[in-house]
């Protein structure tokens, strides 16, 4: 650094040989207290797990005698009712469409909310708190509860399920989207602003390429989650495969049940693989 002959920089101070961990200075004492701590932690863990057994009324012996019932159930569920394959196409489509609807409307509503809820770009403080509040509420209430509310409001069928997924997705997506916006790199935004570009040009040329891949990735992941949720929503009367599963159970049609479970498995795996594949494409 002294190319020109003058020393302009102070040499780095030599690293001081001081122990980083203060407890290392007193080995015997810390060894004893550490052993005591370990025993206490061990007892607490045992206590916590033990009380959970009592509270859930765990009865291992019932599980053992129950094996027999399970085997019986399985034998009655085999083989799956292949002949009904045609009948489950419609509920499967319903389940997929619930997830599509829920994700698309969730994304559309979450985008403006996320802009308001991102501390670095929010247009106004009151909007920031309002948006944060909406996101927290829609997120904290599970989609199953939203579905119960919407079934009461608009009646049985896939529509309340789609609404429930949308509303819950708003919260889940809104939070992740606003985090992406808050973590955005402002360097390119400044650089393009200084070329004399308009606000819209800066948005389309710097902001969008900066955040779009993350937003797409998050949305695809949400679709995957929504598909799994939509299966459960059927149990409260919100359409799709879940609803068929519930009916088949109530009517003791176990061969139909096994077919439906198989279809569920295929759908979930396909959605998981598909969304992972697409996410890799946009990364």
């Amino acid at each position, binding site marked *: 650094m002294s190319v020109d002959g003058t020393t302009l920089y102070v040499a780095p101070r030599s690293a001081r040989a001081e122990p980083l961990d203060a407890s290392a200075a007193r080995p015997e004492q810390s060894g004893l207290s550490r052993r005591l701590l370990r025993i206490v932690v061990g007892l607490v863990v045992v206590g916590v797990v033990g009380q959970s057994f009592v509270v859930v009324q765990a009865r291992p012996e019932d599980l053992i005698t129950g094996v027999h019932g399970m085997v019986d159930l399985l034998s009655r569920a085999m083989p799956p009712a292949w002949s009904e394959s045609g009948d489950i196409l419609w509920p499967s489509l319903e389940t997929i469409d619930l997830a599509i609807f829920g994700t698309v409307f969730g994304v559309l509503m979450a985008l403006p909310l996320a802009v308001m809820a991102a501390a670095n770009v929010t247009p106004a403080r009151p909007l920031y708190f309002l948006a944060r509040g909406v996101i927290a509420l829609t997120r904290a209430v599970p989609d199953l509860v939203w579905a119960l509310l919407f079934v009461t409001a608009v009646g049985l069928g896939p529509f309340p399920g789609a609404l429930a997924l949308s509303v819950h997705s708003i919260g889940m997506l809104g939070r992740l989207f606003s985090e992406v916006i808050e973590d955005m790199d402002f360097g390119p935004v400044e*650089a*393009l602003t200084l070329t004399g570009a308009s606000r819209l*040009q800066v948005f389309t040329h710097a902001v969008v390429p900066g955040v779009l891949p993350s937003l797409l990735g998050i949305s695809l992941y949400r679709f995957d989650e929504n598909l799994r949720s939509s299966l459960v929503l059927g149990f409260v009367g919100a359409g799709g495969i879940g609803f068929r599963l519930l009916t088949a159970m109530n009517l003791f049609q176990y061969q139909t049940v096994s077919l439906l479970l198989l279809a569920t498995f295929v759908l979930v795996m396909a959605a998981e693989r598909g969304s992972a594949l697409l996410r890799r494409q946009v990364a």
Partner: protein
Amino acid sequence: MSATLAEPARGAETRLAVRGLRMRYPNGKLALDGVDLTVRAGELVTILGSNGSGKTTLLRCVARLLDPSDGEVLVAGEDLAKLNGNALREARLALAMVFQRANLVRRRSVLANVVGGTLGRRRTLWTALGGLPAEELPLARELLSKVGVERLGGQRADTLSGGQAQRVAIARALAQRPKLILADEPVASLDPEAAEEIMRLLRALAEESRLAVLCVLHQPALALRYSHRVVGLRDGVVAFDLPADRDADLHIALLYKEMAA
């Protein structure tokens, strides 16, 4: 080596004139306290100064990324400190900035990044919607070869090395056809050889393309070797403003020594 530097013509056009520039941050910190500075066409001027002396604040005030509290910033004759909205946008066409981190749009190609520099001149519906002005592609290719990375045009910007990215950033700045280039520590993250090359490039832009270049550096040796003038900044005040020769050497040593004391 400084003795061989060609003195830019005395009568050359003034591209940047800063007068009585003061900047007080909202927290009360007075980062610039009456800075005067001139940069002419064909001139490379370097600002030196220890951490916190106000170098970045000065460049950001000149570019109006910050609103100065007081003073004038004349870029090609226009007082940027007084302009707003569309007039500010128009006036900014004359200046381009190169940052320490190249600040390229990471997921776009190198060529697209360079063409991005022309957006201020090409304000059409197509470019507003995210399209690139195809008519600027030849210019972008020409500039990429000028900065020595013509082969990288198709590569994504986030696959470049630090030195390559900085060259692309300079090409983007040139695509704007600016009259003044501001550079804040453009070589801070580069290896010594790459740093020399970037400085050589900036120097050539000043002398051959008659641009005015104002550059912040932390390497006095590079400053003395490549610039026409060095300006020392200390606590928001200009401590010296000298031609880059032996004399400056001593002042620079003093500038840093006082801070260490």
